[in-house]
């Protein structure tokens, strides 16, 4: 999951509504769009972003694609956030350590 994928997946309120609708029940695109104040192409685009971020997945059912929440997705997103802040704080620690060495040396 890239930085942008993780953040943009969560950032849009309509996208969240799509995610919550799928959490209630797996659904094809048309049914999702019918229940939301957005167009079908917009819903498809939101599903693509959610899918790229690992939050939803699709299965084929005959000629239809049924989308559903991917259960591991939120756990993976949280793990990504966890690692993100580990990296940021490691940078802070390194900077403070280097500052100490300069003052001691």
């Amino acid at each position, binding site marked *: 999951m*890239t*930085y*942008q994928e993780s*953040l*943009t997946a*969560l*950032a*849009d*309120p309509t996208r*969240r509504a799509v*995610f*919550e609708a799928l*959490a*209630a029940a797996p659904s094809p695109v048309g049914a999702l769009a019918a229940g939301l104040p957005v167009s079908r192409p917009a819903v498809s685009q939101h599903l693509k972003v959610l899918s790229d971020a690992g939050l939803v997945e699709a299965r084929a059912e005959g000629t239809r694609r049924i989308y559903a*929440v991917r*259960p*591991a997705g*939120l*756990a993976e*997103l*949280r*793990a990504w*956030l*966890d*690692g*993100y*802040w*580990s*990296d*940021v*704080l*490691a*940078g*802070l*620690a*390194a*900077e*403070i*350590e280097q*500052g*100490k*060495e300069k*003052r*001691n040396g």
Partner: protein
Amino acid sequence: MVEPVVKTLELACDAAHAFEVFTTRTATWWPLDSHTVSAGADKVARGVTIEPRLGGAVYETTHDGARSDWGEVLAFEPGVRLAMSWHPGSDPGTATRVEVVFTDLPGAGARVVLTHSGWEVWAEQAAELRGNYEVGWGAVFADRYAGACA
């Protein structure tokens, strides 16, 4: 579900110094090539700035000199606490919250605790509708000790 991320760090300097480095020298330690909006475009950001006051802007100076807003300072207590709304790459309406608390340790050194929250409200709704997710925390703490204090 996306519960708040909590990271704890112990440093050999005092809380006031840690707060100062965090807020006034952000660009000297933030990973500009990997944890920025610029990095999302495979570029290196020029800087990260936290304006040192309540209501101050938090922003990235991108690889081409433009400004990318990340959030706003919600609490600014020197040597004690920094809190920010957090929305890098998106708009303020979808911000989460990052809070950093600085505490002197008995004797010497300081503890820094960072909490990133705000995702959990909508994620919990989804989890309740869907059932519980199994989540292993496996949190990784950045846990460094520097040499002797200056």
